[in-house]
């Protein structure tokens, strides 16, 4: 299977990834090769086979009780934030 430049630009936009001009042909080529490779799955006999939902048979995702379990550590967590003010995360203006 062969992807086009437009396909890659669209995927990158969906993934919120800015690509440089030089990166685009590299990904057109390598993703085309990956999807050709993944195409091997097409012929696998999967009729009537349920998709696997958990790596351990019979187990499902455990849920926890809906209770407050964590204390508020906002100031500590925000030490890693690129830009904060008065306890708020700052981003470029969204509404003019």
């Amino acid at each position: 299977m062969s992807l086009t430049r437009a396909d890659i630009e669209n995927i990158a936009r969906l993934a919120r990834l800015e690509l440089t001009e030089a990166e685009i042909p590299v990904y057109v080529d390598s993703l085309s090769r990956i999807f050709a490779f993944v195409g091997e799955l097409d012929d696998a006999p999967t009729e009537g086979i349920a998709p696997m939902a958990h790596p351990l048979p019979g187990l499902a995702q455990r849920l926890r009780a809906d209770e407050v379990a964590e204390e508020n550590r906002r100031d500590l967590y925000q030490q890693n934030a690129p830009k904060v003010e008065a306890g708020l995360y700052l981003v470029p203006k969204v509404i003019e």
Partner: protein
Amino acid sequence: MSAPAATVAELARGLAEGRYSSVELTKSYLERIAAAQPGLNAFVTITGESALAAAAAADATRAAGRAGALTGVPIAHKDIFCTEGVLTTCGSKMLANFVSPYDATVVRQLRAAGTVMLGKLNMDEFAMGSSNETSYFGAVHNPWNTEMVPGGSSGGSAAAVAARISPAATATDTGGSIRQPAALCGVTGIKPTYGRVSRYGMIAFASSLDQAGLITVSAEDAALLLGPMSGFDPRDSTSVESPVPDYTRTLGDSLEGLTIGIVKEFFDKGLDGECEARIREALRVYEKLGATLREVSCPNLPLSVPTYYVVAPAECSSNLARFDGVRFGYRCESPKNLADLYMRSRGEGFGPEVKRRIMTGTYVLSAGYYDAYYLKAQRVRQLISADFARAFGEVDLLLGPTSPTPAFKIGAKSDDPITMYLNDIYTIGANLAGLPGISLPCGFVGGLPVGLQLIGPHFSEARMLNAAHRYQLETDWHLQVPAAFA
């Protein structure tokens, strides 16, 4: 003190007998790290000061008569595990400035067991790679030949243990990232059953596959460390509530009556002839130990790599959506608007392989393709798991190669992702089926180590470690040290 050849078991004994203190031991490892770092690049962060403080505390604990089996033993953590107050980069520019506000459960548990952290180990960016070349902090070099890759993604962990600059190291395995570098560096690497070890504080790559484990010199060392590292953690929703056995207790059990399955598909094609010869020699050792060998077939196993390259990128594209330049990590300079902030922070913060996988995953999950790719792959995954289940109806453990070839040259496979992905052809199956696996050194080809792999049923770590330990009592491949680091 003979630090270079020492195993965790020997060091623990030396500490218990008072032959050296943890401070002395830790100092000697920090010196070895400093000497090796320019050539190997195994560490991202060396925490010398806090290591010496922790070692002094361990010595005080011992003086007070409260020492445990691992008190004062130095280890190092893969830089995918969050460590409070210490840089945690995951090998990425995206997290090059991230100081974790909390400890991963694995880090906390191993500290509680008395181990001393020497530092944080280099790795492929976000654990995506099989050669450790995708790290933002530069490639790690193989201690057996520094022109060669150490394997990946836990390349720093494997190189550090192989060069004896850390007695043991934590690692993670999504498609072979513990076992493949362990094989390429001539050390022991165990990936436990999915859910056995907590993943809280372990930066997520592909959540239905990721599992934490260990790289050690010996299976005995792995047994010593795996117990304290395992167990139920309410903070990890995939953590399994199943009792943790004492893995050291059954290490010496006889292998009489053990049936080992030789997976036909592992020997079909692509396996280097010399590597195959080493594996066949190991089979004779197992026969001598009383095990029965039987050929088994897992016909869908050859589809494991394409299955993985749908499932893992899909989950990665979802997990890595959290890196948006807002709450932590890299942010681009002067973003024009919110979309620009997201797009450029991610475009500049992630390396080429991570972007490739995010895009692959985004595509297979996008409207119109979900059924054809993602659901199809999850169905094939069911077939692969059923193959393993059928095999374990006939045999106790499976044995095969860990990697199709020994270590390759740095740069040799970086141009073609498919060639690189095929390095994990023998390891990915265990991840898809959630099974435990271990890689053991079983000889050399052209001066480079070769690894054999054992795969067991779910939660069979004790039996697997037993079979590994008995093999290591008969052989000394795991005790070989690269000449430059002896």
